[in-house]
């Protein structure tokens, strides 16, 4: 770095902590008959470069937009928005909350990526969205299925797109998620955090709409033959979090997710090798390679049930195991019954 040309050397050295040897060496520069060019015009030069790059980018975006059938003001607005987004990303001028939730990323990248899957592939039908509060904390509790936890992502889209205030679902995920590269990062950025009481209560106290699948890996990784049969609902930690914060529990039943990757077998030794809770064998995976990762296009229904209030109990009730078990069972039963009735209403798996 010290051998770089003069212009950037000056800034480069300034950013580094002063190293006396270098600082002294720069003071006795060789004499020039003609003074060194001032750094200012150079900065101006690269600013023009940036401008021309931006102009080129705008032209490219215009052409793409025109090809996509957009024109006029709408196109201009979209281009301005895209450029502003890019600029904020490049300069770090975006906000990340205490949990690592990056709202801008979720709005501009994450949800737009999921939306086509939500709308076109699974054709999700949402019922009972009015059961979600417009503001304030609530704990959405749902069944978990599908070998790959796509259901959580679809509930995220459903809650954001269908609620009048476009609320964000703050999901609680297993530590395995946060241990994995990319996955853990995306989970935090899109609003998830660790499924632990401390984090759940922190989210609920902050008035966030929190989403949890208490079945965990037992739910996602169950064999196809046991579809729509709820597993044990954890140890009731979600109920005690709701009791301590006094927020309602909203049961959420998802039909359709069980059929996306029918889990026929579990290669336990491979699972151990990779450190996964299970290694799925489906009709298509791993036999068809990456093609086996394409989920079957089942038709989904997500139904939000009537809220179960918890504010009638004292916060200390969270330490009463019997009450916690009772409430856990009540939530579980509600979801199980809703699942059965939705299955009866469903005409076919795929439409």
């Amino acid at each position, binding site marked *: *770095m010290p051998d770089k040309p003069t212009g950037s050397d000056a*800034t*480069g050295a*300034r*950013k*580094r*902590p*002063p190293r006396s040897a270098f600082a002294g060496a720069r003071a006795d520069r060789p004499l020039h008959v003609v003074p060194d060019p001032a750094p200012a015009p150079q*900065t101006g030069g*690269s*600013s023009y470069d*940036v*401008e021309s790059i*931006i102009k080129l980018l*705008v032209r490219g975006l215009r052409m793409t937009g025109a090809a996509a059938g957009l024109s006029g003001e709408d196109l201009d607005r979209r281009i*301005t928005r895209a*450029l*502003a987004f890019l*600029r904020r*990303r*490049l*300069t*770090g001028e*975006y*906000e*990340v*909350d*205490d*949990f*690592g939730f990056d709202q801008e990323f979720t709005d501009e990248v994450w949800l737009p990526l999921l939306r086509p899957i939500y709308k076109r592939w699974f054709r999700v039908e949402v019922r009972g969205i009015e059961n979600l509060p417009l503001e304030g904390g609530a704990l959405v509790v749902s069944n978990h299925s599908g070998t790959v936890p796509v259901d959580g992502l679809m509930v995220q889209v459903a809650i954001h797109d269908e609620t009048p205030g476009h609320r964000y679902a703050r999901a609680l995920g297993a*530590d*395995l998620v*946060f*241990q*994995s*590269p*990319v*996955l*853990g*990062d995306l989970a*935090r*950025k899109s609003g998830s*955090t*660790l499924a*632990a009481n*401390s*984090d759940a209560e*922190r989210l609920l106290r902050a008035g966030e709409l929190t989403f949890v699948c208490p079945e965990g890996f037992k739910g996602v990784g169950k064999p196809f033959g046991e579809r729509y049969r709820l597993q044990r609902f954890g140890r009731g930690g979600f109920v005690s979090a709701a009791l301590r914060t006094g927020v309602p529990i909203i049961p959420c039943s998802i039909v359709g997710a069980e059929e996306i990757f029918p889990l026929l077998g579990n290669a336990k030794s491979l699972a151990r090798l990779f450190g996964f809770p299970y290694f799925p064998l489906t009709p298509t995976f791993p036999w068809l390679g990456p093609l086996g990762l394409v989920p079957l296009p089942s038709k989904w229904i997500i139904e939000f049930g009537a809220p179960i209030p918890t504010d009638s109990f004292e916060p200390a009730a969270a330490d009463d195991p019997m009450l916690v078990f009772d409430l856990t069972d009540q939530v579980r039963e509600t979801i199980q019954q809703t699942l059965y009735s939705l299955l009866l209403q469903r005409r076919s798996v795929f439409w």
Partner: protein
Amino acid sequence: MATTVLVTGVSRFVGGLAARALSTDPRIERVLAVDVVRPAHDIGRAEFVRADIRNPIIGKIIKQENVDTVVHLGVITTPRQAGGRTTQKEINVIGTMQLLAACQKAPSLKRLVVKSSSAVYGSSPRDPAMFTEDMTARRTPPRGFGKDSVEVETYVRGFGRRRPDVEVCMLRMANVIGPGLRTMFSDLFHLPVIPSPVGFDGRFQVLHLDDAIGAIHAATLREDCTGVINVAGEGVLTLHQAARIAGRPTLPVLAQAGPLVQQLTARTRVGNFDAEQMDLLCFGRGMDTTAQRTVLGFTPERTTRQAFTDVFGGDNRLTALLRAGGAHA
């Protein structure tokens, strides 16, 4: 009320500045600034006492001068400053032990303030989003400064049990940054290219040097404030965000390749990277700062973002250009 305050570790940044800040406070009569090396910077009205906290002589000083408040800032974060990891551990752990042994024998002592670090919480994927003071590390830091801090805290807790009449206050500080202050953490953002673990983007908090001094000052004088207090600027930044603010490109590296990156940066002399930080860069760490505001009654002037931008975002040409360019677009 603190009348005679003894500050350790004054030859370094935080210690020296804290001694100076305390010496300007009219409520404090005397400030004794202790270290083995004379500080190169001005320590104000504070009286410099050349002593090694690892030597029992420190006990005599505390007794003779009737010290009522000891502010222990002699815990070193960077091995290089101490002259190697062995010395660092010696100063941090043995130094604290000796100092506390001396404090235990001092009847005049009323209050002990110790600078600890957020490193005691470690960094793991099972961490809560925000650590409160009553939580412990999910994965105890296995080596380095983090381990030292955990041990220092254990000794301080032990001291608290043996001398219940002494008020003990420990400040768990987020990474302190400031102009001219060199730590393991600041070295990272002085690298020409910032190594970032692939697929991770840890969150972190920082504390501006001025605010660190402010917190130490507040903790020295605030008598009802005891126990552990998390000290950090509001809000968090992620590694990539920080790199953008500092105007440095990031280089994806495998999280497991930390030691290799450390060797490479040392060999090529581009800067210093410490593999110890890899977990922090992967999983990040956040501290709940409610007690800082309510118990300590101190609110840092700068948020994490402001502090970081002040210290590292000074000459970010890209930001400047994009601001100019963005105005045209």
